[in-house]
């Protein structure tokens, strides 16, 4: 090792990290595919894949209980965004652009992104810790041993809850931010509420809303899958649950930001305005 060529060692390290990264990405996609397959199989046999009560419990926790946090953070971000952009635009006499800027910014980008980051931290961590604890206490194995598919029983309702709730929460985020910016516009830039709404309606296009909804669905799927995958692959008892929970949040947030960038690049290249 002492004679090892430093650039070679660095290249090997990078290669190792790259290989691990690709393996993890592949595993998460297989995990989603297997969950989908197990759930569909169950439906094909004319049975519900999971109980409605289980699904609604997760939607309540992931969705309804997240509304105050998402709303509040987005409200403050909307205030800040309107104030900062407003003072810059005022110098050129174009402060009437604030409503459109905040509306488009949040609907297309910040709403889904902020909601994704908050859900990854709040719900992703909870899912990983919950499933991880079940894994180390042999509960998951017991479910499997009974002949019950753990993916459709434990994972599918969680992923579906996040998948369906993300667009709703993004909408809450958008509305909170737009409402906050309307307050700033009224208080500092003398833009009346009615005029503010007209400006928002003029600026927002259907494609902005569709983009935001599609991103939200994608982020919901990613956060749910990563959180559940990390939970079910926990090893090493309580310490393992802690490590996996941290890893789940970091991976989910990174994935959300990474996929957001990728989405924007693809969208801009293939569907230019």
């Amino acid at each position, binding site marked *: 090792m002492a004679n090892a060529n430093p650039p070679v060692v660095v290249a090997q390290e990078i290669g190792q990290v790259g290989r691990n990264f690709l393996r993890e990405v592949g595993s998460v996609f297989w995990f989603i595919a297997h969950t989908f397959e197990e759930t569909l*199989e169950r439906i094909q046999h004319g049975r519900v894949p999971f*109980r409605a009560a289980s699904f609604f419990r997760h939607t309540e926790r992931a969705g309804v209980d997240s509304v105050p946090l998402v709303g509040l953070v987005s409200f403050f971000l909307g205030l800040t965004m309107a104030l900062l952009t407003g003072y810059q635009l005022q110098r050129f006499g174009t402060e009437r652009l604030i409503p459109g800027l905040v509306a488009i910014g949040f609907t297309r980008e910040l709403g889904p992104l902020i909601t994704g980051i908050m859900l990854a931290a709040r719900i992703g961590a909870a899912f990983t810790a919950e499933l991880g*604890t*079940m894994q180390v*206490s*042999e*509960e998951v*194995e*017991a*479910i*499997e*041993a*009974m*002949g*019950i*598919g753990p993916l459709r*029983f434990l994972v599918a309702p969680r992923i579906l809850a996040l998948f369906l709730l993300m667009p709703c929460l993004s909408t809450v985020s958008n509305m909170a931010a737009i409402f906050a910016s309307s307050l700033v516009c009224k208080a500092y830039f003398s833009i009346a509420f009615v005029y503010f709404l007209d400006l928002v309606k003029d600026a927002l296009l259907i494609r902005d809303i569709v983009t935001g909804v599609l991103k939200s669905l994608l982020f919901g799927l990613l956060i749910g899958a990563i959180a559940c995958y990390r939970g079910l692959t926990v090893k090493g008892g309580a310490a393992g649950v802690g490590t996996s929970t941290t890893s789940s949040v970091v991976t989910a947030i990174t994935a959300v930001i990474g996929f957001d960038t990728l989405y924007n690049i693809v969208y801009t290249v293939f569907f230019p305005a």
Partner: protein
Amino acid sequence: MVELRDVRIQFEEKKVLDGFSLKVDPQERLVIMGQTGSGKSTILRLILGTLQPSGGSIFFKQFEITKLQRRKLQQVRRHIGMVYQYSALLSSRDVRDNVALPLEELTDKSRSEIDKIVDEKLDLVGMKDSKDLLPSELSGGMRKRVSIARSLVLEPELILLDEPSAGLDPVIASVIDELIISLTEKSNVTSITVTHEMDSAFRIATRMAMLYQGKVIEEAEPEKFKESENPVVAQFLSGSTEGPILEDSQDAIAKK
């Protein structure tokens, strides 16, 4: 009913089972004994198909477990009940829901039919009055009994029990042992129990097997097993500190 042929499995460098073969006949109560960490629980997981061996074959009735597709394996598992060492009850569900889970998920029975079966099974294990309690509110022995009730709820043909009396006081351990005997006799169920608790093993077994260094080194009915001339079995049964078991362990440590 169950047959393991030349099964091999290793975890990293450690060979756990190395050419392990065993046959279990219907309605037998086989007890597999062995040291801690010798691979006893691994055998149960291999039979269930939650672990894959690196070699050999495992049969449950006419099915070769190691070659079954996931869906078929799930169907076969419905005929096998498993009682885990630490019970593995779902902590977020009460006793009733834990026992009802396989029925709710795998059968088309109505709520009232499920309730009737759950009551019946909980009654069998003496836990009917505790069905609204959460696993965290139960003692170790009570959890074990609920776990046994859950394993019986689909009327399995085979029950696998992982250290059923470990960590329990002698009286409760006897209660669990008697419960296993009466349930298997009443329902004509075959059982495989792994344990290193001597009293329990001799109480439950109709046949015993000793696992040592990845292989079965002795297999006999309890009375004959007690009189085994195999030095490893003799040392294990007597609990003596002198004999091949410790010598082999020390050799292994010295080799490392």
